[in-house]
């Protein structure tokens, strides 16, 4: 076991309670809880940059990754987060295993729950799936993406990246651009950023904006240049290629022309603008490589690094509430 860096020790000694069994939605959180999670995550960033990265905060605990949708990035991020905190981590991919043959989601979860995991990280293609599971199991459930609903740890890591880059979130102008209609990342981010006092704009063609998005409290723009004008952060979203073939947008090239982020459009944003993307990127479709790879502008790599730290903060906070012996 390694020593926690001084910053982290300070946060860990702070008594703050995280009165939740599950981590399902940004809407379950309040500002104080988010600030504490971000402080904690900040400390874990320093830990993760040490040679020896391992703590024993989750020693003896079992973390189960249950990913009904494939995701290398999020799954390995949770896996590393769990391992660095000393938990035993098991990855389940029900798609590829026999566990889900003809079995419902709940049966699968109840089966896994009987193996006594402490933390169950779930990704599923249906909105509300994580919430449904949380009602049927005894362990803590962490939503790693449910359909088009929420991806709360992504919003947390995005907030962490922004706070580290700008020193604050309140007052930032953030444009979220692209396929907002189908994006859980956008939903979680809108809620969290608004809670933290940022001004959020949604930018995309009408076909990719959710119905009544104007009631989300964010300004809607169909013109990319206007939408990102004066923005401190431009957050691009992934657009699935099959939605671009005349379905939601006429073609890839038309989409890139009007809604892809390139240098020229980015020039409309505020000086010092930072670009974010939850990944994986479609280069040349929603984002130009020139922008994505410019480390002076892009926070995309930071986001991945912050992902591990943010998830460590969530796991630590939840584990502190777990019963010691059932």
């Amino acid at each position, binding site marked *: 076991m390694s020593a926690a860096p001084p910053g982290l020790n300070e946060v860990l000694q702070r008594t703050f309670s995280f009165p939740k069994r599950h981590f399902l939605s940004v809407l379950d959180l309040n500002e104080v809880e988010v600030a504490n999670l971000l402080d904690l995550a900040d400390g874990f960033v320093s830990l993760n940059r040490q040679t020896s990265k391992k703590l024993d905060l989750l020693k003896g605990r079992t973390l189960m990754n249950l990913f009904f949708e494939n995701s290398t990035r999020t799954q390995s991020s949770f896996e590393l987060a769990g391992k660095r905190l000393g938990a035993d981590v098991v990855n389940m991919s029900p798609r590829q295993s026999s566990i889900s043959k003809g079995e*419902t*989601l*709940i049966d699968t979860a109840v089966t896994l729950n009987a193996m006594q995991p402490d933390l169950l990280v779930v990704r*599923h293609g*249906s*909105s*509300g*799936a994580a*919430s*449904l599971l949380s009602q049927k199991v005894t362990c803590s459930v962490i939503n790693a993406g*449910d*359909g*088009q*609903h*929420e991806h709360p740890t992504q919003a947390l890591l995005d907030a962490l990246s922004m706070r580290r880059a700008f020193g604050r979130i309140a007052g930032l102008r953030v444009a979220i651009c692209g396929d907002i209609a189908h994006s*859980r990342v956008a*939903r979680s981010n809108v809620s969290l950023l608004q809670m933290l006092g940022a001004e959020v704009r949604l930018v995309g063609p009408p076909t990719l904006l*959710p*119905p*009544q*998005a104007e*009631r*989300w409290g964010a300004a809607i723009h169909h013109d990319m240049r206007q939408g990102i004008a004066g923005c401190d952060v431009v957050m691009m979203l992934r657009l699935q290629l099959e939605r671009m073939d005349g379905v939601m947008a006429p073609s890839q090239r038309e989409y890139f022309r009007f809604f892809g982020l390139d240098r020229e459009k980015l020039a409309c944003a505020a000086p010092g603008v930072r670009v974010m993307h939850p990944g994986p990127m479609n280069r040349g479709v929603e984002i130009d490589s020139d922008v994505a790879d410019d480390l002076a502008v892009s926070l995309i790599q930071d986001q991945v690094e912050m992902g591990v730290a943010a998830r460590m903060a969530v796991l630590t906070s939840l584990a502190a509430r777990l019963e010691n012996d059932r």
Partner: protein
Amino acid sequence: MSRPLAVTNVRLVDPASGYDGPGAVLIVEGVIADVARGQGLGSLSKDVEVMDGAGGLLLPGLVDIRVKTGEPGFETKETLKSAARAAAAGGVTTIVVQPDTHPVVDEPSVVDFILRRARDIELVKVLPAGAATKGCEGQRMAEIGLMAEAGCVYVTDADKPIVDSKVFRRVLAYAKAFGVLVAHRPADPWLSAGAAASEGEFASRMGLPSMPAAAEKIMLERDLALVELTGARLLVDQVTTATALEALKRGRDRGLPVVASTSINHLSFNEIDIGDYRTFCKLDPPLRSEDDRQAVIEAVASGLIQVIVSAHAPAPPEDKRLPYDEAAPGAVGLETLLPALLAFHHEGRIPLIDLIRTVTSAPADLLGLPSGRLAKGAPADLVLCNPNTPVVIDADKLTSKSKNSPFDGRRLQGKVLMTVADGRVVYRA
């Protein structure tokens, strides 16, 4: 045959005659032999069993023209017998079962099967609706004439809209020649494809695939145009949105022979009741906005919507305990129909007699049934209830084989005390 039965000391509400007042009813040989208004029944012979209704409400037995069971084909959901028991417990004495079973009710032998089963069950009246097209697939006409002859009371493809306008035109024209009513679900198939909720702020925040209210209006407008073209009668199966109601009103104002129904669920719940992805509130059509719900209540009050259905659609846990967009739509409703309906009376929104009309004489008249009224010579289908008794709906205690009730936990007023079908007491609380 059992002894004649007199139910005395009750408040009669008979929408067919417009009577709402004290009275008594005499039942002989399965038929209403006498209805006394105001005064008693006079001197009764000694073999008459007299039941003191203790001031309760005596209504015609309810006629629910949109009920699904699982029989034939999906008996784990509900059988004709379990549905008939649930109906009896809910004061419903006539149910019209939908044709989308397995096999589909698209030819006379299946109509006959259901009628035989119903006769053997000997509880409430079970009448089949036939499919409008073979297999409810919307392509080729089913044997509408033969099914009508065998006893089907209307034709419909149930939840599935008949997309091809040419096919639907032919169904309307053909059914008209046989005097058969056609019911049709107004839903644009493309706008509603894959939808689990109504388009709007709620679904948008919840990340649920949704359909706009316009999906209902578009198909309704087409149907009205085809009614105008063919002159056939149409039952619009469950109008649930304000925008479609406007279209319906225009059609009815033009004198088109169109009658509309709505479901008790769309009168009682709105999209927010879905809450944290409560699949018991996943319905087809989906629950709508509060504005839509209010418009539907208003339409019932104004008579624009004449028929209320339970839209009873049993779904076992394996179909409901799933993520929201994978869960089966539908809710059981036979046992909760009456108390849920009475809520609008208690709220003072709709006069009692008008409410009761939507589930008795209106649907009976629509289908040409002799029941649904407290009249001499009518079938002795009655329900005695106390409209004021508070009840807490407990889904687990429902008679229905499936327990998927969105009313679970709801506090309502109104309790069925006794249900009589064809002179037989089929339920007693």
